[in-house]
């Protein structure tokens, strides 16, 4: 080695692949100690090759291979130290100079527009590398435009962690139902005038629905935090421009109107003017079920770096305004009682006590007489300590059953709408028992 103090053996670096090969390797990707490097053959003079060794990150290599950054800028803008290596034709390193991108000799640099599009075969390291980066960069690009929701428990017992059951059954299902109902309502509101054929509109919506779903692009556990994004890229396949524009905007509209953190007057007015009561009920009931549940907090933020704010409707009149309470008419069933009297003849030798009622075997009336004895009093827990026999009459009048009795010249009467004679008898006995206790 010539006179320098840097000892660096390129042969110890692992070669990943030659990116540019022109009769010999021109630009090679190397790895050493987990770090990525590019080795760029910049000159060949007399008996020597001159290389530039550049430490670089994988993301920049991906950008270079996919025509996003030029080799010129990759070198010039690289902030790491770069190494100019002189090597003989045997492969021995003779000299190393440390330099920086901005000081590289012009003759060692490629054209300003030194872009490259690398098409790897499936044998290439870059085949998986590029596919994986493309998938990740898609997620990253979605994440940049994602808004975030956080579900947490208000119970200090579990810190702010959320149970799996609560998450799936009470939170995510409600959110998903609300969003789907919103999509449907907004789609038909928007396009029913332009495309009046309802069946056709239904078909379009059904086909569109899977593409409208928010993409989950970020996740955090404990309290459950999720980043949701609208997939702009996939929506490019929608041919109708109006529908495409709507599908790109509808996610934001949902976030603005439904996941609003304060439901101010303007938002509420927009909600009411855009959607009818039934649509609002379907959209907002699942969300209010979360926000009004004292066991959870639902928080929302505009982006990963923003701060969360709790979705909470402080003025409960707002909820009533968006989803008015349904006035339900209670239907009471009118009963029409009658007393049925019948006589049965049973074969004493038969164990079965089933009585078959035939219309011809009994008749009906609206009143009948019964006798209440001290045994009946005891049966209901009222002790008399003497024998009694009180004549009572059961009568019906439409939906009312009455039980009345005359005792010591006093008339006792109880009425009931349920038709439960036992209860009625107990009430009457209670009244008579009380009278007996007070008069004796």
């Amino acid at each position, binding site marked *: 080695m010539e006179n320098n103090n840097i000892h660096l053996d390129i042969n110890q670096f692992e070669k990943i*692949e030659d990116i540019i*090969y*022109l009769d010999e390797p021109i630009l090679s990707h190397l790895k050493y100690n987990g770090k990525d490097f590019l080795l760029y053959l910049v000159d060949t003079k007399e008996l020597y090759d001159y290389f530039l060794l550049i430490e670089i990150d994988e993301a920049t290599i991906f950008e270079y291979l996919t025509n996003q950054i030029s080799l010129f800028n990759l070198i010039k803008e690289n902030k790491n130290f770069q190494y100019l290596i002189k090597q003989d034709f045997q492969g021995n390193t003779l000299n190393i100079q440390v330099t920086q991108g901005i000081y590289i000799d012009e003759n*060692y640099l*490629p054209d300003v527009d030194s872009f*490259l599009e690398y098409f790897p075969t499936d044998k290439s390291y870059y085949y998986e590398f590029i596919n994986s980066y493309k998938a990740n960069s898609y997620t990253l690009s979605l994440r940049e435009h994602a808004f975030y929701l956080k579900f947490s428990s208000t119970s200090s017992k579990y810190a702010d962690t959320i149970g799996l059951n609560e998450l799936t059954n009470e939170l995510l299902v409600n959110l998903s139902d609300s969003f789907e109902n919103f999509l449907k309502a907004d789609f038909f509101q928007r396009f029913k005038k332009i495309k009046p054929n309802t069946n056709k509109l239904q078909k379009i919506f059904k086909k569109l629905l899977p593409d409208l779903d928010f993409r989950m692009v970020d996740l955090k556990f404990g309290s459950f935090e999720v980043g949701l994004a609208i997939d702009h890229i996939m929506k490019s396949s929608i041919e109708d421009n109006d529908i495409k524009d709507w599908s790109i905007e509808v996610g934001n509209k949902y976030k603005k109107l439904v996941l609003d953190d304060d439901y101010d007057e303007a938002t509420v007015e927009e909600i009411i003017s855009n959607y009818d009561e039934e649509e609002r009920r379907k959209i907002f009931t699942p969300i209010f079920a979360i926000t009004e549940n004292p066991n959870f907090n639902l928080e929302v933020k505009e982006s990963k770096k923003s701060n969360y704010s709790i979705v909470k409707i402080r003025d409960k009149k707002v909820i009533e305004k968006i989803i008015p309470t349904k006035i339900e008419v209670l239907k009471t069933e009118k009963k029409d009682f009658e007393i049925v009297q019948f006589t049965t003849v049973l074969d004493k030798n038969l164990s079965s006590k089933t009585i078959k009622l035939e219309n011809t075997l009994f008749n009906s009336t609206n009143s009948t007489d019964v006798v209440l004895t001290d045994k009946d009093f005891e049966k209901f827990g009222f002790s008399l300590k003497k024998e009694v026999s009180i004549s009572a009459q059961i009568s019906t009048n439409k939906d009312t059953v009455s039980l009345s009795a005359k005792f010591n010249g006093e008339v006792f009467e109880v009425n009931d709408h349920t038709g439960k004679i036992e209860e009625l008898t107990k009430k009457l006995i209670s009244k008579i028992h009380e009278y007996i206790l007070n008069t004796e």
Partner: protein
Amino acid sequence: MELKYQKEISTIENCPIENLSGEKILFRCVEESMTENSFLPNAVLLKPKFEKECLAWGLSLFSSYDSAKQVLQNLSKSKKVNYSKIARTNLTDNDGIKHCSKNKSHYTFYPQKNLDLLTKFVIVEENGK
């Protein structure tokens, strides 16, 4: 088929690694004035470090004019002295052995011993014709 530098190539195991059959139009980066030197595997002839590298005994060709041009644009100004033009060829199976490797745009061509490369390649301009 005997190739140019067959003796040296034969000393390397599994070289050439494969043979892509069929006629194919390919492009090569050459000097301003094309000479026999434009078709010598200079790297290996000059540099002993490549002696046992199979690819170095072949010639680099590219699948399109644009991919050859991209390579030229990515060469340093110093290295571009030997490569400034793009020549086009239509190779048949009789011309030698050719194959693609990890980069779909890059082919390595091992010419048949008696092939006249200077007549086989024609310098082309921007549109590749």
